[in-house]
């Protein structure tokens, strides 16, 4: 931590902290905002995918004659005729861009089928209708191979999950199993969570345009810079000739962080037919080619003394990846940080299945892990006859429970106090099933939210014109977080200029490289770059002015300059070493608490969420309006996870059975009550401007808060998400 950062964090600000309207709001409410599938080129051709209908196989023949005969079809690409791409690079910590290889499959370069839904052909046609129709006429012949598909059946064969530099996979402190045996009060529960899909409302789409060796790609991506590098590698062209444009991204939530088949095949098809190609995936194609969240089974066992002080915490998990790739989900990650106990045992296991690679979805690990630990804490409170808020306060740690590291900042006590007061928690009747309102059983639940804080370095340039206009240039990606808005606020304050004079250019790989939007890293990372670039700019202007007073415009005019530009470039190795050193002694996070009220229909078991309040300890808030939206968004997604969402995978065929928004139920208007959001607004002393990322924290704990409220309303503890009405009806 440096002193300048602390001073800044407490200095008066003009725009930082204000609920400013988002700068791209107008473009979005007028329909001017163009997304990846909405760029027109003369001669644009349209592509559609053909998906494998079996889980594991070799393709022995593929008949494309009928498809080719459809009027308007330009070409049908299969493994027999497609130009080859280079294989996807394996992950290497020395080149973080290798992280975006979503699977190890080299599409259309192999006769192997690795999952049910894998693209095995691409049809290119003059119209989207012709492409879609022709795609249904392609006939692959398969020689089927045995496939391992059933997550529940494979659970006993799970192997220990590997950790990495930033994420340990397991923890042991004392002897938790022995402590459990002697604890006066215990709970020992088994939880299950289903697969989920992101379902960003904009389905993945790519418009690819080749000009010789130069490539332009319009793509809804969370990772502009890494996508550019990946495409350059796969297509064997210089990176500087590849341009990725993503000024608007219609939601991502992790689903647009990696490079999936559709992107690659659009670029491949454009090269093959020598025309610009658009591949706009159907909703079903998104399910079949873009990974989702792993299912999990979890065990949480807690031991406590009669006063409710924890003596043992056990949290173990099994999740899955694909045999062809996927991210092992850190399911027990939050449990490393939540509660003090002398004995802790954490383990994560994984099974590999012949399914599409899973991937990160909003708060991977914490979202489903907190369902288990926070439900178990609630159940322990019932066993003890203790208020669940009080139980949490009694076990609130002073230092990080597994290793004694210091917290950079931790205000969960304050969050609980404020939340309980605002929500009217103490007024409730604590008995289960005792509160009724007509046919409704009413219950209240509480749970903790937690998400780790990470940062990556960003390159930023700031240009100050003689006319007083400021342009911040950074290849950040905006998928609704309000990223450009908050960076404009920060730059305006740093330079002391009106917000209206600042423009942020983003969403273009020809701008200075920024980290991807994922892991809640973007806002703070780029803020660090913006602050540094503004500092440098001010120094440059001071030098130009030789210490004489004057406004920026006057100084530039006197020096005969039309503009001044300051650039900052990240030094990745130095940054990584600093990060790793800091992580040896410090734990940083965003955290919060959820309070909710649910109503359960006595006869039908229908569950309605009627009230919600969250209090968040998420560092300094730059924009209370966009921050509230983001926190609410996580809660809404958590409501879906708790009550209605579930991807159904046929364990015999590996086929997703509900790949549509009609059959996979995301929350609608009527499912979402007013969500009251409060912040503690306490800067994190170790972060630029005191900011921490807020994109993911609020989904953590939501499912547990709902489950706990259902338990209070009905007396039924549901351990298996989603909490559908059949699970709460008696018998």
């Amino acid at each position, binding site marked *: 931590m440096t002193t300048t950062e602390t001073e800044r964090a407490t200095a008066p600000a003009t725009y930082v902290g204000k609920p400013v309207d988002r700068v791209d709001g107008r473009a979005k409410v007028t*329909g001017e905002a163009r997304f990846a599938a909405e760029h027109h080129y003369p001669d644009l051709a349209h592509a559609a995918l053909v998906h494998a209908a079996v889980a594991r196989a070799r393709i022995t023949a593929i008949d494309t004659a009928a498809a080719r005969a459809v009027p308007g079809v330009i070409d049908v690409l299969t493994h027999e005729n497609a130009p080859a791409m280079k294989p996807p690079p394996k992950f290497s910590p020395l080149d973080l861009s290798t992280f975006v290889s979503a699977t190890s499959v080299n599409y259309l370069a192999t006769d192997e089928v690795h999952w049910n839904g894998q693209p095995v052909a691409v049809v290119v046609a003059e119209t989207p209708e012709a492409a879609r129709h022709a795609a249904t006429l392609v006939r692959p012949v398969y020689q089927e191979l045995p496939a391992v598909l059933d997550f529940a059946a494979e659970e006993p064969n799970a192997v220990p999950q590997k950790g990495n530099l930033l994420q340990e996979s397991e923890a042991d402190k004392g002897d938790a199993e022995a402590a459990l045996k002697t604890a006066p009060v215990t709970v020992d529960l088994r939880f299950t969570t289903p697969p989920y899909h992101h379902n960003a*409302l904009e389905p993945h789409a790519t418009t690819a345009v080749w000009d010789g060796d130069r490539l332009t790609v319009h793509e809804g991506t969370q990772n502009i810079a890494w996508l550019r590098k990946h495409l350059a590698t796969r297509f064997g062209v210089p990176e500087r000739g590849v341009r990725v444009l993503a000024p608007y991204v219609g939601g991502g939530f992790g689903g647009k962080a990696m490079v999936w088949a559709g992107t690659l095949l659009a670029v491949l098809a454009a090269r093959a037919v020598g025309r610009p190609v658009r591949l706009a995936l159907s909703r079903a194609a998104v399910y079949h080619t873009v990974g989702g969240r792993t299912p999990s089974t979890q065990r949480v066992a807690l031991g406590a003394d009669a006063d409710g002080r924890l003596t043992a915490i056990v949290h173990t998990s099994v999740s899955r990846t694909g045999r062809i790739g996927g991210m092992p989900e850190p399911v027990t990650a939050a449990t490393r940080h939540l509660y003090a106990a002398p004995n802790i045992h954490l383990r994560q296991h994984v099974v590999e299945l012949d399914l599409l690679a899973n991937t990160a979805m909003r708060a991977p690990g914490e979202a489903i892990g907190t369902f288990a630990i926070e439900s178990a804490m609630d159940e322990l409170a019932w066993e003890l006859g203790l208020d669940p808020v009080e139980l949490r306060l009694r076990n609130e740690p002073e230092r990080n429970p597994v290793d004694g590291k210091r917290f950079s900042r931790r205000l969960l006590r304050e969050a609980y106090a404020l939340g309980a007061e605002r929500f009217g928690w103490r007024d409730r009747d604590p008995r289960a099933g005792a509160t009724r309102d007509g046919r409704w059983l009413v219950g209240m639940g509480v749970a903790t939210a937690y998400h780790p804080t990470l940062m990556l370095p960003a390159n930023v340039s700031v240009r100050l014109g003689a006319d007083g206009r400021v342009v911040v240039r950074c290849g950040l990606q905006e998928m609704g977080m309000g990223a450009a808005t908050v960076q404009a606020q920060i730059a305006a304050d740093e330079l002391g200029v009106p917000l209206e004079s600042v423009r942020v250019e983003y969403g273009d790989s020809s701008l200075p490289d920024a980290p991807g939007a994922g892991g809640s890293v973007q806002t703070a990372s780029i803020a660090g770059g913006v602050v540094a670039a503004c500092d440098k700019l001010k120094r440059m202007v001071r030098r130009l002015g030789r210490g004489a007073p004057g406004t920026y415009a006057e100084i530039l005019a006197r020096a005969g300059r039309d503009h001044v530009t300051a650039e900052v470039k990240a030094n990745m190795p130095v940054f990584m070493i600093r990060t790793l050193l800091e992580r040896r002694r410090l734990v940083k996070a965003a955290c919060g608490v959820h309070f909710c009220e649910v109503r359960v229909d006595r006869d039908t078991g229908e569950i309605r969420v009627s009230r919600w309040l969250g209090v968040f300890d998420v560092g300094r808030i730059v924009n209370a309006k966009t921050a509230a939206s983001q926190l609410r968004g996580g809660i809404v997604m958590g409501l879906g996870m708790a009550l209605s969402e579930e991807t159904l995978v046929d364990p015999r065929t590996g086929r997703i059975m509900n790949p*549509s928004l009609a059959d996979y139920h995301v929350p609608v208007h009527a499912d979402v009550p007013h969500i009251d959001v409060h912040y503690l607004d306490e800067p994190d002393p170790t972060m630029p401007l005191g900011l921490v990322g807020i994109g993911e924290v609020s989904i953590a704990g939501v499912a547990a808060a709902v489950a706990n409220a259902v338990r209070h309303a009905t007396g039924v503890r549901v351990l298996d998400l989603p909490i559908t009405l059949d699970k709460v009806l008696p018998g």
Partner: protein
Amino acid sequence: MRVNGAEEKLDVEPWVSLADLLRDRLGLTGVKKGCDQGACGACTVLADGTRINSCLALAVQYDGKEITTIEGVAPHPLQEAFVRHDGLQCGYCTPGQICSAIGMLAEHAASGADPAALDEAEIRERMSGNLCRCGAYNGIVDAIKDVTR
């Protein structure tokens, strides 16, 4: 067909959906497509003032009708209210939400129902065909309430 006030003479195959016609052939990309099967509301437009899912409508069925997309509603007080109440994040559902809200308010007025009956719960119920995966529902409802005051 009249689209946003302008006469359009078009020759389309019978299988082309209204959404694809508007997006691909007329360049009205304010019409979004989230599912192409009537499940998300992103493609909502107004046909003679009534809200419809244009992905479920065949273009030829709307011969002679007046179609209004988000490009044709401006300036509408709802647009400004959406920005002020932050009833959007990624913005992909937004044109559909706004068109749907305009249609919904007209339906409600035409039914002769008491404007005061259009409370939050009623707005939510009537807007439930328009999904927002970013979860901007609170802001959307606030924006709609705001323009009805």
